[in-house]
């Protein structure tokens, strides 16, 4: 498969969040500011690429009866490495993501890609797949983050821009606090998935029209 196809799959047609509905816990829990979303997305992408590469390299060595257990150990190893690195060098991120960093171990995206792709394909293809799927995950997270942050705290780029406070777009007192609370997570993700379903159907229809012409 070509890079372009992989990329399109990861970003839209097989996006891990909006289409495969994997890794929902972190998508809902930490998407309250751009900083969190980007950080989580990058952490997952790095772990996904590493675990895909290692699992793909070992795919002929791991007996198929115990493959799930083996995958989990490999993934947990990388998660621990990333967790410790974040604690050492990016303490702010590590504190704001909290227990959801170790919980990347049970993020179904990583185990799902290991089982569905890395266990059947070569090392390079698996690395590419990890990169594209991770990118799709990050994009979905960032979209949810931007909407929630704008509606909930009225800012953009919280945690990164403007000395960590973010650029204020809606004046203080007006934003709906609930959007950065659990309610907002469910509602915004619902609308984002609905939006992506609408977009995909539109693209499909346009493709069909092109074929008909």
């Amino acid at each position, binding site marked *: 498969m070509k890079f372009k196809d992989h990329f399109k799959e990861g970003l839209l047609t097989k996006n891990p969040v909006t289409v495969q509905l994997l890794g929902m816990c972190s998508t809902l829990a930490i998407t309250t500011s751009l900083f969190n979303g980007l950080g989580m997305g990058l952490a997952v992408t790095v772990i996904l690429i590493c675990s895909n590469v290692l699992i793909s390299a070992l795919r002929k060595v791991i007996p198929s009866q115990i493959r799930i257990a083996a995958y989990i150990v490999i993934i*947990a190893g990388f998660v621990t490495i990333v967790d410790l690195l974040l604690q050492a060098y990016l303490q702010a991120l590590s504190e704001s993501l909290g227990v959801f960093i*170790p919980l990347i171990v*049970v993020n179904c995206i990583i185990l799902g890609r290991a089982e569905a792709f890395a266990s059947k394909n070569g090392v390079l293809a698996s690395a590419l797949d990890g990169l594209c799927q991770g990118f799709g995950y990050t994009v979905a997270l960032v979209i949810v983050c931007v909407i929630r942050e704008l509606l909930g705290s009225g800012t953009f780029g919280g945690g990164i821009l403007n000395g960590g406070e973010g650029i204020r777009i809606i004046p203080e007192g007006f934003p709906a606090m609930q959007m950065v609370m*659990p309610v*907002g997570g469910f509602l915004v993700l*619902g609308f984002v998935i609905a939006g992506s379903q609408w977009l995909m159907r539109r693209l499909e229809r346009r493709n069909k029209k092109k074929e008909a012409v």
Partner: protein
Amino acid sequence: MEGAYMQALLGILFSAVLSENFILVKFYGICPFMGVSKKIDTALGMGMAVTFVMALASAACYGVNLVLEALELQYMQTVVFILVIASIVQVVEMFLKKSVPALYKALGVFLPLITTNCAVLGVALVNVQAGYDFLLSVVNGAAGGLGFTLAIVLFASIRERVDKSECPQAFKGFPIALITAGLMALAFMGFSGMKIF
């Protein structure tokens, strides 16, 4: 038992079920919450299986953590806990299959899914971070599971009804389910003002 300890215990119990509900407030275990909530009976089965495993895992991880602390290997927590949970799930599955076939039939299909349920690993990690003792850990695990069961059964019963109603094409399936869950979370927010102790 001392009064203060009893209060902490009851506080954990109530907050894990209601005001700090594992799914609707803390977002642990969303995958099974979305995946296994199309029918009330399967939702109940999943809830029971999760409660059982969460209580067991809390107990086991408490013990394992003591060993890790003694060896100064705390950084291995994540790896070791997930292995412990995976083996607990496996053992529970084998035990139920041999000795309680009726229960196995009811819970069997859900058990393998529980290994990757973040509620189980989540509760184990939270217990350690909060420094709960053995009893508090187990109560937190069991109560978290009960909260999970409550949320998933309520959600399944709403979903059965929602599936029959009309809704815009783009919202069919998961989007409308997520919005339903959002409204439930809004309702559960009401408990956060309730401080029993």
